[in-house]
C-alpha cells in the first residue's frame, strides 16, 4: 500500500502537490470537470481576515467599510464566535484559491477538491459567469481600479473620494442590468436586420413619398420624457446622465458598477455554486479512498468536516440562520444523481425529463445552464423536500396570524418548489426600483418609482439614508414614489436640506403605463 499520498495531520507542500495531481486526474478523466488552471496560495489566519474584509479580492481599493469588516471579523474570531472559512476562491484565470495554514492535511485535501475543482469548474462552466464575468481580466481591472482611486484621493482628497464611494456602494445592488443582456446575434438575425435596413432605404428613395402633402402636426411630443423608458440600472444612469459629475467621478461610479456586475452571478448562484463544490468534494474524496490513496482515518475526518458543512439547523433552533446553501445545493445535486441512477415511480412522474438518464450528463447540464432560482424550480425533488422537512408560511399583515401554506405532502411539493425558488430569486427579493423621470426642463429633479410586490414597503429609515446618497450623486432633488397596486402609497423626497416622506396620498390613483 505505498500508494498512500500522505498520512498524519500535518500537511506538506509535496502532499498538496500530490493531492492536486491525483484529484485533477480523477476530476478530468472520470467526471469531465473542466477547470481554469489552479493557483493555490497558502495564507495565515490573519491574511484570511484581510481577504474576508476585501470581499475575497486579492486587490481592492481602500475604503473604511472594509476596515469595519475587518475589525468585526477580527473581534468575532478572537472571541471564538466564528471560525474562518477553510478556503476562499476567486473567479479568475488562473483560479486563485487561498488555503489556511492551520488546516489539517485532510482539510487541505477537502479544500483542494472543493475550491480548486468544484468552484473552479463552476466558474468556468456556468452560463451566468460566462456571460457576466471575464475571469482573465478581473485581477488587472481591480489593479487599475485601485490605482485610479488612489490617484483620485491624492488629487481630490480622501474625503471627497470616500463620500463618493459611500454613495456608490449604497446603490451598488442597483448597478446591474437585470433584465437585458446584449447577446451576440446570430447570422440569420443579422441578415434580417440588413434586409430591414435595405427596405428602409428603398422606401426613402421612392420619390412618390415626397408628393404627399405634409400634415401640419402639433408638436405635441416636443418635450419627450426622459428617460424614454424607465431605467433599472441606477448607477449606469447616473454615470451617463448625472449633470454635475466630474469625469473622474464618473469613472469611479463606473468602477463600482463594474465590480457590482462581477459579483452579480455569485449572488445568484450561491446554492448551486456551493452545492456543486460540495457535491464534488464528496465524490472526489470518496474516490481517493476507494483507490487507496488516503487512509480510513483521513476519510473519517473528512466525513466529519463534510457533515458540519452540510448541517441544516431546524427553523426553531437557536443556530438557525436561513437555509444553508451548502445543504440545499448538495442535497439537490446528490438527488439528481439518485434520480438518474435509481429512479422511483415518484421520480418518473415528477422529473420525467431526466429520470433514468446519464447522471454525469445531467449534473453538467444543470450546472451549466441554471441559476439558483431556475435550478430549484427544475430540480428540487419531493425526496429533498421530505428530507429537509420544508414548509411554507405566509405572513400577511392584513391577517391576524401567520398561516402555513404548504408542507411536504403531495399537494405541497410544487408549491414549495415555487416558493423556495422565489426566495432565491434576486429580482424578487430586492425591491424593484427604477428611474421614472427626470425633469429636464424643470428643476432637474429625478423621480424614481418603486413597485411594491405583495404590498411589501421599503424600509423607511434606510431608504431615506440611501436617497441622501443618491442625491449626493445626482446633486438635484430626488423623489421616490412607492406604488402599492399602482396607487401611490408613499412618496420620499430628498433635497439639499432635508429628507422626508409623504404618507398615503389616499385615492390619488396614477396608472403606470
Amino acid at each position, binding site marked *: 500500500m505505498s500508494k498512500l499520498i500522505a498520512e498524519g495531520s500535518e500537511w506538506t507542500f509535496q502532499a498538496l502537490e500530490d493531492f492536486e495531481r491525483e484529484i485533477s486526474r480523477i476530476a478530468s478523466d472520470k467526471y469531465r470537470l473542466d477547470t481554469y488552471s489552479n493557483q493555490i496560495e497558502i495564507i495565515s489566519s490573519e491574511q484570511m481576515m484581510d481577504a474576508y474584509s476585501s470581499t475575497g479580492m486579492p486587490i481592492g481599493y481602500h475604503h473604511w467599510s472594509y476596515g469595519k469588516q475587518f475589525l468585526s471579523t477580527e473581534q468575532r474570531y478572537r472571541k471564538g464566535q466564528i471560525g474562518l472559512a477553510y478556503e476562499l476562491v476567486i473567479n479568475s484565470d488562473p483560479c486563485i484559491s487561498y488555503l489556511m495554514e492551520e488546516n489539517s492535511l485532510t482539510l487541505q485535501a477537502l479544500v483542494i477538491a472543493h475550491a480548486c475543482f468544484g468552484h473552479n469548474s463552476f466558474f468556468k462552466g456556468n452560463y451566468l459567469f460566462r456571460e457576466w464575468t471575464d475571469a482573465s481580466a478581473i485581477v488587472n481591472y481591480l489593479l487599475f481600479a485601485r490605482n485610479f482611486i488612489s490617484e483620485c484621493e491624492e488629487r481630490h482628497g480622501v474625503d471627497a473620494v470616500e463620500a463618493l464611494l459611500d454613495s456608490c456602494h449604497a446603490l451598488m445592488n442597483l448597478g446591474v442590468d437585470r433584465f437585458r443582456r446584449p447577446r451576440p446575434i446570430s447570422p440569420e438575425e443579422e441578415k434580417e436586420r440588413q434586409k430591414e435596413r435595405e427596405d428602409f432605404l428603398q422606401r426613402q428613395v421612392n420619390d412618390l413619398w415626397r408628393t404627399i402633402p405634409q400634415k401640419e402636426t402639433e408638436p405635441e411630443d416636443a418635450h419627450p420624457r426622459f428617460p424614454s423608458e424607465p431605467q433599472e440600472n441606477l448607477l449606469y444612469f447616473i454615470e451617463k446622465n448625472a449633470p454635475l459629475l466630474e469625469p473622474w467621478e464618473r469613472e469611479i461610479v463606473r468602477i463600482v458598477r463594474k465590480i457590482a456586475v462581477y459579483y452579480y452571478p455569485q449572488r445568484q448562484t450561491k446554492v448551486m455554486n456551493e452545492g456543486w463544490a460540495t457535491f464534488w468534494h464528496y465524490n472526489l474524496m470518496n474516490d481517493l479512498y476507494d483507490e487507496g490513496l488516503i487512509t480510513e482515518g483521513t476519510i473519517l475526518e473528512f466525513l466529519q468536516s463534510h457533515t458540519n458543512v452540510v448541517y441544516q439547523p431546524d427553523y426553531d433552533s437557536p443556530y438557525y440562520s436561513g437555509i444553508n446553501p451548502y445543504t440545499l445545493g448538495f442535497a439537490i445535486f446528490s438527488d439528481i444523481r439518485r434520480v438518474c441512477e435509481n429512479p422511483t415511480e415518484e421520480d418518473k412522474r415528477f422529473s420525467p425529463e431526466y429520470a433514468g438518464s446519464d447522471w454525469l450528463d445531467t449534473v453538467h447540464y444543470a450546472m451549466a445552464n441554471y441559476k439558483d432560482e431556475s435550478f430549484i424550480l427544475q430540480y428540487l425533488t419531493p425526496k429533498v423536500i421530505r428530507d*429537509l422537512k420544508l414548509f411554507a408560511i405566509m405572513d400577511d399583515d392584513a391577517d391576524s396570524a401567520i398561516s402555513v401554506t404548504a408542507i411536504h405532502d403531495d399537494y405541497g411539493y410544487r408549491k414549495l418548489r415555487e416558493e423556495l425558488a422565489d426566495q432565491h430569486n434576486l429580482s424578487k427579493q430586492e425591491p424593484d426600483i427604477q428611474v421614472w423621470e427626470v425633469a429636464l426642463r424643470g428643476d432637474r429633479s429625478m423621480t424614481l418609482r418603486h413597485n411594491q410586490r405583495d404590498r411589501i414597503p421599503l424600509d423607511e429609515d434606510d431608504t431615506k439614508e440611501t436617497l441622501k446618497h443618491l442625491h449626493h450623486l445626482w446633486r438635484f432633488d430626488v423623489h421616490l414614489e412607492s406604488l402599492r397596486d399602482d396607487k401611490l402609497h408613499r412618496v420620499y423626497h430628498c433635497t439639499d436640506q432635508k429628507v422626508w416622506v409623504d404618507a398615503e396620498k389616499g385615492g390619488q390613483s396614477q396608472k403606470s403605463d
Partner: protein
Amino acid sequence: MAFLIIDRRQQGKQKSAVNRQRFLKRFKKHIKEAVTDAVNKRSITDMERGEEISIPKKDISEPIFHSGKGGKQHRVLPGNKEFVRGDRIDRPKGGSGGGGGGEASNQGEGMDEFVFELNQQEFLDFMFEDLELPNMVRKQLKDSDSYKLVKGGYLKEGIPARLNVVQSLRGAKARRIALGGAIKREIRALEEELDELGEMASERRRELEYQLERTRRRLNHIPFLDDFDLRYNNMIQQPTPTTSAVMFCLMDVSGSMTQDIKDLAKRFFVLLHLFLKRHYEKTEVVFIRHHTKADEVDEEEFFYSRETGGTVVSSALELMKTIAQERYPTDSWNIYAAQASDGENWADDSPKCSELLVKSLLPLVQYYAYVEISSGKEQELWRAYDAVTDQFPDRFAMRNVKEPADIFPVFRDLFERKST
C-alpha cells in the same frame, strides 16, 4: 494541468491596515468619546491596554434600498415538526420578524452595537490626541527607550578600558601550550639523548647541544602575550527602566473642585504616571487629598468622593513630607509630585506652603509639578508658588490649565531634561 502552489504566509500581513485607519478616522468622534469614558473609568495605573469600543450599529450602517416589514411575506423554512397545511400560528410577540418568519436571521440578531477592539497603540493615540503632545513625546511614552549596559560575552576588538585581563591571559596561556607543546617534546627528547651520551665529548654531543640551543630559542620566541589573545568585555544595550519611582498625587477636594476639574486633573496624573512608568522599573503612586486636612486615600476615593469645606494646602504638603521620609528614602526612590488645585487657599496658609516646598519638599523630589485649573486670574496659591519657580527652575513647574491641551506644557521641561 498546470498549477502553482505559492506560500504567501510571509508577505502582506497588514493588508487591511489602511482600511482600519480609515475606519478609525471616520468614527473618530465616537471612538474618542469611548476612549475618554475609558480613561475616566480606568485606574491611572492601568492605561496601557487596548479598549473594547462599541459604536451604535445605526451610525455605521451602510444603507441600501431594501424591503421593510409588512405586506405579504412568503417564507420557506426547514425542519417542520408539527405543522400541516392550513395551520395558523400566532405571531410571536416582540421579536422582529419572529421565530416564525425567516427574517429573524436577517434583521433580528439583536446586535445594536458594533463592537471592536482598539489596540494599545491606538488607544494611547486617541488619549493623547487632545493633549497635543509632540510626536517625539508620544513615541517616548509608547515605547520604552531607556537602556542600560550589561555584559554580554567578549570581543576580540575593543577599547583598552574594556580589556579583560583574565580572559586575555587565559587565552595567551592556552596559545602558548598549543604552540609550545611540540617544541618542548623535542627538547625533552634531545635532553634524554644527551643524558645517554654521558660526559664524553664527541661530534654527536656538540651537534645535540647546538640543536638543543636552537630549539630552546624557538620556544622562547613564542610571545607571552600576543595581540591575538586580547579579549575585551562586550557591553550590550538592554532596554530597562532604571529604578523605582514614587509619584505623589496631591489634589484639592474642597467644595470648589467640580468633577470636570477633577477629570482634567486625572488626565494630568495619567500622563505623569505613563511617563514615569516608561522610565522606571517600579512605580508606586500615593494619593493624597486634602481640604482642611489631608488624608492618604485609594484611587477611587481620590477621584470620586466629594468633600466640602475650606482649603488648607499645607496639610497635604506636610503629609507628603511625612510619607516620603518614612517610606521612600531618596537613595532608592525617585520622587515625583503632581499637585492639582483650583488655586484657592486659606490666605495665611500660602506662605507656609511655599516655605514647606522650598525647605523640605523640593530637596527631596526630582520634579514637582503644580497645575492650577481655573479660568480666572491667578489665585492665592499661584502667587505664593511663583517665587519658588525662580529658586528651583529645574525641578519645579507650574501652569495654569484651562483645557486638556494646556496640560502638556507642564511636562515639556521634564521631557526635555530626560531626553538629553
